[in-house]
């Protein structure tokens, strides 16, 4: 296992490097003068020159890249053009709502997704199964913000059960914290839940049909042990993999969901930065989120190695 862990970590390093290069090059491959675009239409020549030197665009490309990498490695993502506050500080201020939202969403979609998938697999071909498949396809087709507004309309405005929008910090009380998180998390989890339940259904059905499951039954193993030891363990690999693949989807969804529900998280930080053309903020958040994606996919690979020893070879 240790050799597998080391090998996986080493093979992640080039991906991290590529992410850094891509995020860096975005600024430089864009047609036209990014400094002029960021400065906006009304800006004078001095303003454009100031932004150009602030972004380091007036230096040779390789030099800019080396400086940028050295700074990023030291934990310096630059500062907002608008407020001059370091990007890392801005992210730190906003991390609690985003982390709460994603953790709660992950919990909802993995637990419910696996449960729905198992029910659909157990009743394969029945009316319930078809209904679950339909809900899964529909959940994957509707945009997050439409689902969000419809949930708000029904549960917050018509029924008045939950708050319409906003965020309450955990420190200000657990119940209001949870009440404000329910609608955004359900909204964000639907697409992810659909993905996970579909994969769960498919991989459980596939595992059940394998010869080793028949062998296990034939040698007198109980239903429960066959299920946990043979079916679920083999279905766990594709399910875990899709959880990893879905993380990028989830992060894109966070940006939209925070906008719909007016949650002051990292997603809102980016959206607010768009209208101010605050590029360092956008670049910093993109880099951090991409890093999170790479990290989670590394953990997913390690988990798969844990479930299925053949993967470790």
């Amino acid at each position, binding site marked *: 296992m240790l050799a597998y862990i080391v090998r996986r970590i080493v093979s992640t390093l*080039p*991906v*991290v*490097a*590529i*992410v850094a*290069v*891509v*995020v860096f090059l*975005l*600024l430089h491959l*864009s*047609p*036209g003068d*990014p400094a002029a*675009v*960021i400065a906006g239409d009304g800006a004078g020549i001095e303003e454009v020159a100031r932004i150009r030197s602030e972004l380091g665009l007036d230096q040779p490309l390789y030099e800019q890249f080396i400086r940028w990498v050295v700074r990023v490695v030291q934990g310096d993502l630059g500062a907002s053009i608008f407020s001059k506050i370091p990007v890392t500080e801005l992210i730190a201020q906003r991390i609690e709502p985003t982390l709460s939202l994603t953790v709660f969403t992950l919990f909802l979609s993995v637990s419910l997704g696996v449960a729905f998938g198992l029910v659909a697999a157990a009743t394969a071909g029945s009316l319930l199964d078809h209904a679950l*498949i339909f809900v899964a*396809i*529909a959940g*994957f*087709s*509707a*945009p*997050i*913000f*439409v689902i969000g*507004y*419809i949930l*708000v*309309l029904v549960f917050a*405005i018509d029924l008045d059960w939950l708050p319409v929008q906003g965020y309450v910090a955990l420190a200000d009380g657990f119940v209001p914290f949870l009440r404000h998180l329910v609608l955004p998390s359900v909204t964000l989890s639907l697409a992810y839940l659909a993905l996970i339940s579909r994969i769960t259904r*498919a991989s459980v*059905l*596939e595992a059940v049909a394998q010869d080793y499951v028949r062998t296990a039954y034939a040698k007198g193993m109980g239903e429960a042990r066959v299920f946990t030891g043979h079916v679920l363990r083999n279905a766990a690999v594709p399910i875990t993999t899709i959880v990893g693949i879905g993380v*990028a*989807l989830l*992060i*894109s969804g966070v*940006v*939209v969901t925070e*906008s*719909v529900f007016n949650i002051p998280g990292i997603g809102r930080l*980016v*959206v607010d*930065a*768009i*209208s101010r*053309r605050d*590029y360092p903020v*956008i*670049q910093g*958040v*993109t880099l951090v*989120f*991409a890093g999170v*994606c*790479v990290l989670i*996919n590394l953990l997913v690979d390690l988990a798969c190695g844990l479930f299925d020893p053949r993967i470790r070879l």
Partner: protein
Amino acid sequence: MRFNRRMSIGLLLLGGLALAAIMAPFLVGDPFAISPANRLRPPSALYPFGTDNFGRSVLSRTVYGGRISLIVGGAVAAISVVLGFAIGLPAGYFRRIDNVVMRVMDGIMAIPSVLLAIAVVTLTGSGVGTVIAALAVPEVPRVVRLVRSLVLMIRELPFVEAAVASGSSSFKVLWLHVLPHTVAPVIVQVTYVAGSTILTEAALSFLGIGTPATIPTWGNMIANARNFFSLAPWLIIFPGIAVSIAVLAVNLFGDGLRDLLDPRLARRVR
């Protein structure tokens, strides 16, 4: 070719939406016509989908809004097929470049698509072309990965060996013997690309980036309605249904196509 049910439903819905978008000027009224006397009117005979806060017909705007979604979805699908083959075929066939190319693809795929699009649009300014480019970047690696994995499998087959042994150039082997066997699964994958692109485009329009605000899109219609949606839910419901139907149609078509092309997989996944 025998069509199955999912594919027919998908194709029918998609055809209907495309036809409506193309024929929009003959089907519905002016999407820009303001009628201050008829602001925020619920659906009626005159305005079947109601009116927005400027008194504009939601039906007209929804029909016209489909144009951007379908253009962007179609263009990104086309770009990802072309680049997917152009990068994936050599990556799978020539071992030397495989590792490098695939690590680059992994790196691009690690960046969440909405954030990548936000970064690109912030740097280059808004416009439909920018949106297409920004959305194609994260989708291309998905096609490249599929093409490459298919090529890895196909290049070991006897007919490829025979072609190589008979002295065909690498280009000829790839073009005549490998490519044709990768087309079917790639078409299926590309329908999913189109579906996810339509969703991401709607999200970008909703966030107010990309397509200029003067052009009606399903996403910016919903964004404009956010302050009135408790008074006038039809402002969100109709464009919302339109996006969902478009994505559903593309996904049903893809599912049906997959079942048709690979019955073995169909029985397994469904």
